[in-house]
């Protein structure tokens, strides 16, 4: 359906005159030139395309653009604030929690949602909370370490 869809992207207002049935993933990657959000399975299974919608993780390959009217979207490009990386981003770097990097955007934004629900998750909480994001390389245990470390930093404790 043609029309205008307005939402906030990484804090900036955006108004797009495009087919509102198009999926957010492709609008981000084409109209908005934000390619940190990745296409992988295209069916909402792998989590590589995860973004935050109103501060909650969502799979952008499944989201109609029209469903975002007046909402707030944050992609991996918008997670750092004022040049300061988010504690999850720092922890992923420091714990070597990535290899090829293709799942990383989705991992970090899914972990962001996990820590909102469970600020001090156990390893088991992290494993079940991240279960629907796929990494094909082998960074899994380091991803768990990174999330625990970021949780500690966000909770105000030492890393």
């Amino acid at each position, binding site marked *: 359906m043609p029309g205008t869809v307005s939402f906030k992207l990484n804090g900036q207002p955006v108004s797009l005159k495009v087919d509102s049935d*198009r*999926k957010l*993933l*492709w609008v981000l*990657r*084409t109209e908005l*030139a*934000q*390619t*940190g*959000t*990745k*296409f*992988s399975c*295209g069916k909402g299974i*792998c989590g*590589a395309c995860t973004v935050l919608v109103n501060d909650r993780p969502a799979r952008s390959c499944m989201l109609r653009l029209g469903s975002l009217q007046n909402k707030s979207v944050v*992609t*991996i*490009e918008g*997670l*750092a604030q004022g040049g300061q*990386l988010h504690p999850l*981003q*720092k922890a*992923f*770097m*420091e714990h*070597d929690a*990535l*290899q*090829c*990097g*293709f*799942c*990383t*955007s989705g991992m*970090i934004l899914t972990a962001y949602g996990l820590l909102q629900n469970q600020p001090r998750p156990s390893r088991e909480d992290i494993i079940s909370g991240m279960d629907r994001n*796929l*990494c*094909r*390389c082998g960074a899994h245990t380091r991803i768990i370490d990174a999330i625990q470390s970021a949780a500690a930093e966000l909770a105000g404790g030492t890393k």
Partner: protein
Amino acid sequence: MNPTAFILANAGQDTVLPPSPLPGQDRRQFLRTLGGGILVFVALGETLAAAEAEAPVPRGGRPGLPTDFNAFIRIAEDGRVTCLTGKIEMGQGPITSLAQMVADDLDVPYESVDMLMGDTDLCPWDMGTWGSLTTRQFGPLLRAATTEARGVLLALAAERLQVPAAQLVARDGIVFVGADEQRRVTYGELARGQKIERHLTVTPDLKAFAQFRVAGRPKLRRDAREKVTGQARYAGDFRLRGMLYAKVLRPPSHEAKFKNADTSAARATPGVRVVEDGEFIAVLHELPDVAAEAVTRIKAEYDVPPSTLSDENIHEHLLRVAPPAATVGQGGRLEDGRALAAHTAESTFFDGYVAHSPMETHAALATIEGDKATVWASTQNPFGARDQIARALGFPAEKVRVITPYVGGGFGGKTSNLQWACRCR
């Protein structure tokens, strides 16, 4: 950029692009126009031969060294060092580990080493990145090249400082006279005003492990920051002005035989172009998602033979259709081992059918300007891709440039490049 540029990508992806630097130049011209500096070409001397002899023989035979063009190391006038390699970064870490090797063997700060990887116009020929061979096989070659580069710099410094090279010490990109450290010259100063392509006849000895200061010690991945901030570019993230995304029609199963296809519904989508060549059908559109949707509107008919496979007979089937077994490596004497064994056990092992399934789908971006094709490809084998693309297009290999951005996983599945040849049809 040429407005007829087009993209051919699997399911389509994209962003705003960096145009290819200095298009149309051949790689020697390109390096010569990089400005001043020192390019060290590897003499195919004893060090390299020895390094290669120690390396394991890859499946498919030893590829040999690049002989036409093998500048692995460039020292620029500002002292920065570029390591040029046909290896690619897909998460296994060579963008970091090879830079560590270069830093140690050239005596330069790790941070002053830039990696330029997987570009067939700029990098020496390489067999491809697979088999866990980058460190074990390519590492010794790179070390030899880097050691030669250090020899060139020491020879230049000896001329400049009027001291025999044996009295010089190199550290952090600076050459000192050992007995008088005030007498010094930086690598950048040595490279300034130079346009040297140099071959050494005498190779300094490779450093021993105990002399390493950077290699062998943990480092954060060089690509980590780009990858946690979404800045890292993969093949599908590049976008050229005016390009189209292509989505290719795939048969529904193994051994499906194409009969016919009605593409009229796909063609009815505004802005869609359809390329048909027998069973090869691609739908092109300026938006990847529109191309993907339109390809589903093709009514294609196939003869699909019913599968006779089941959980019970799948292993038997895989054994039957597998290529003949081949000896990959041989050493020692099996009879001796048998005679020494206290126990023997025999068993048959089954594994599941395994797909490579990298997170990044197969993707490539191609543009043809005049008689030159440039392809950004998600490949483990840029030079193999170049040759296959050249054959598919009927271009000479030197008129095809393959650039490999970050690769989102490969696991061997991006070695044989069938998809690039397919894209370029």
